[in-house]
């Protein structure tokens, strides 16, 4: 009977739960789904991470290659993110060129990398004007159940922590690069941006970590990316119902607590990763 009601009037069905301040799956309105992270699963990539946020599964693989540095910034390298939402993850995505959703997510990740200065691009330079690293970050969604931006940001952060770049020296006589695969070093991750997404229902109620169905029924979404000092890297609110300053303040405080939760998880991951 409940399944029938859900199909016919999905919004009313959700409202019944929201009135009791919980999700249909029993979560509180301010609670995140179970988050798990697994790093180093792809052996062919220089760094990788798999993040599961409830049912949403996102994997990030990072490959490092050589490139000539940009002419307007000869002492910098590149970080190129790309988010892919293949038909595998959800019925709504068909095969073909990247859909708007994937492009928006790619742009969002690029903005987060740029704004938060997660790694200094100068660290990626090997020889100014001649050679630098380019990190291709491919984020692929394996299962889409809402809140893709949080999962992608977390996957990217975990994968970057995992990346090991070999030492490169330029041979003066030949001018060629010599890669020493035996000596690898981790990247210098300066900040840890963590994304917290909210969905707005009926212009008033804010819920954290929306699932796929909730995103569809919501009247607006908001994503806040915060680093450890409480500085905001990104406040992404693509339209939707209006929010007052006070509601934004509540979102900020929730984002701060979420950052602590994620940071704790990241620290455990890093500890397990480093050689004993």
């Amino acid at each position, binding site marked *: 009977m409940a399944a029938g009601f859900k199909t016919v009037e999905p919004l009313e069905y959700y409202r019944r739960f929201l009135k009791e301040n919980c999700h249909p799956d029993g979560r509180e309105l301010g609670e995140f789904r179970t988050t798990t992270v697994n790093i180093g699963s792809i052996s062919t990539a220089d760094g990788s991470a798999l993040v599961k946020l409830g049912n949403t599964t996102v994997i990030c693989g990072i490959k490092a290659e050589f490139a000539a540095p940009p002419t307007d910034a000869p002492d910098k390298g590149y970080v190129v993110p790309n988010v892919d939402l293949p038909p595998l993850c959800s019925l709504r995505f068909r095969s073909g060129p990247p859909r*708007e959703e994937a*492009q*928006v997510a*790619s*742009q*969002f990740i*690029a*903005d987060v990398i*740029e*704004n*938060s*200065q997660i790694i200094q691009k100068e660290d990626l330079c090997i020889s100014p004007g001649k050679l630098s690293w380019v990190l291709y970050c491919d984020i692929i969604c394996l299962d889409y159940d809402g809140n893709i931006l949080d999962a992608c940001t977390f996957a990217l952060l975990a994968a970057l922590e995992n990346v090991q770049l070999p030492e490169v020296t330029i041979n003066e006589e030949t001018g060629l690069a010599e890669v020493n695969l035996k000596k690898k070093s981790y990247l210098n991750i300066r900040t840890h941006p963590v994304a917290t997404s909210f969905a707005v229902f009926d212009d008033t109620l804010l819920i954290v970590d929306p699932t796929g169905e909730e995103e569809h029924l919501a*009247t*607006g979404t908001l994503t806040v990316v915060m*680093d450890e000092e*409480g*500085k*905001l*890297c*990104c*406040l*992404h*609110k*693509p*339209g*939707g*119902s*209006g*929010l*007052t*300053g006070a509601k*934004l*303040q509540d979102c*900020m405080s929730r984002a701060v607590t979420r950052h602590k939760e994620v940071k704790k998880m990241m620290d455990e991951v890093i500890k397990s990763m480093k050689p004993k």
Partner: protein
Amino acid sequence: SPRLHVGSGAVEGAMQADAKIRTESATESGPRGPSCSLRHFACEQNLLSRPDGSASFLQGDTSVLAGVYGPAEVKVSKEIFNKATLEVILRPKIGLPGVAEKSRERLIRNTCEAVVLGTLHPRTSITVVLQVVSDAGSLLACCLNAACMALVDAGVPMRALFCGVTCALNADGTLVLDPTAKQEKEARAVLTLALDSVERKLLMSTTKGLYSDAELQQCLAAAQAASQHVFRFYRESLQRRYSKS
């Protein structure tokens, strides 16, 4: 430093409605108080003949041309049974549209969807086409303003008007509204906010750079104050247009 406008008033020549088939109305912003530091803005409506509504919005040297087609026929694959399907196309000044344009289109589309009463025109499409004519800073805000004016010109039912305001935060913490391209580059953070006219709530926000929570609230308050001037300009612009025809 506050930049006061020069001149005000509608373009008198264009208001001879009987001589022209289409009336064009152009208005420029009136005098603003010393606390407001928005650049001079001007708006011209109904300048294109094919779209149902069109508007050109000028902010300082940034200029965007918007055209609205709708409510019109929609492809069956895109139709929504109880609402109008909104589509936004943003063309940059040079080059082909890329991922950044797609991201901006999504922001503008969601902002318009929040205010347009789509349920009055189910199974139709409303298309907003924006062309960047010149970019001298605060481009996204100018696009939002042009889109709003074009939607009004087309007669699309909306529950509120919206406007875009850009705030730039410098390294020393000072706030500059409606920055030029040079100011945007030198700023530590640039926030573009869209506010609605009824309750000045935040409809859309996109930011660049690092800033604190308190600075966000400060920018929001400044944007709300600046939006009053923009909404008053919208109202004056429309009053002038409809009073003489």
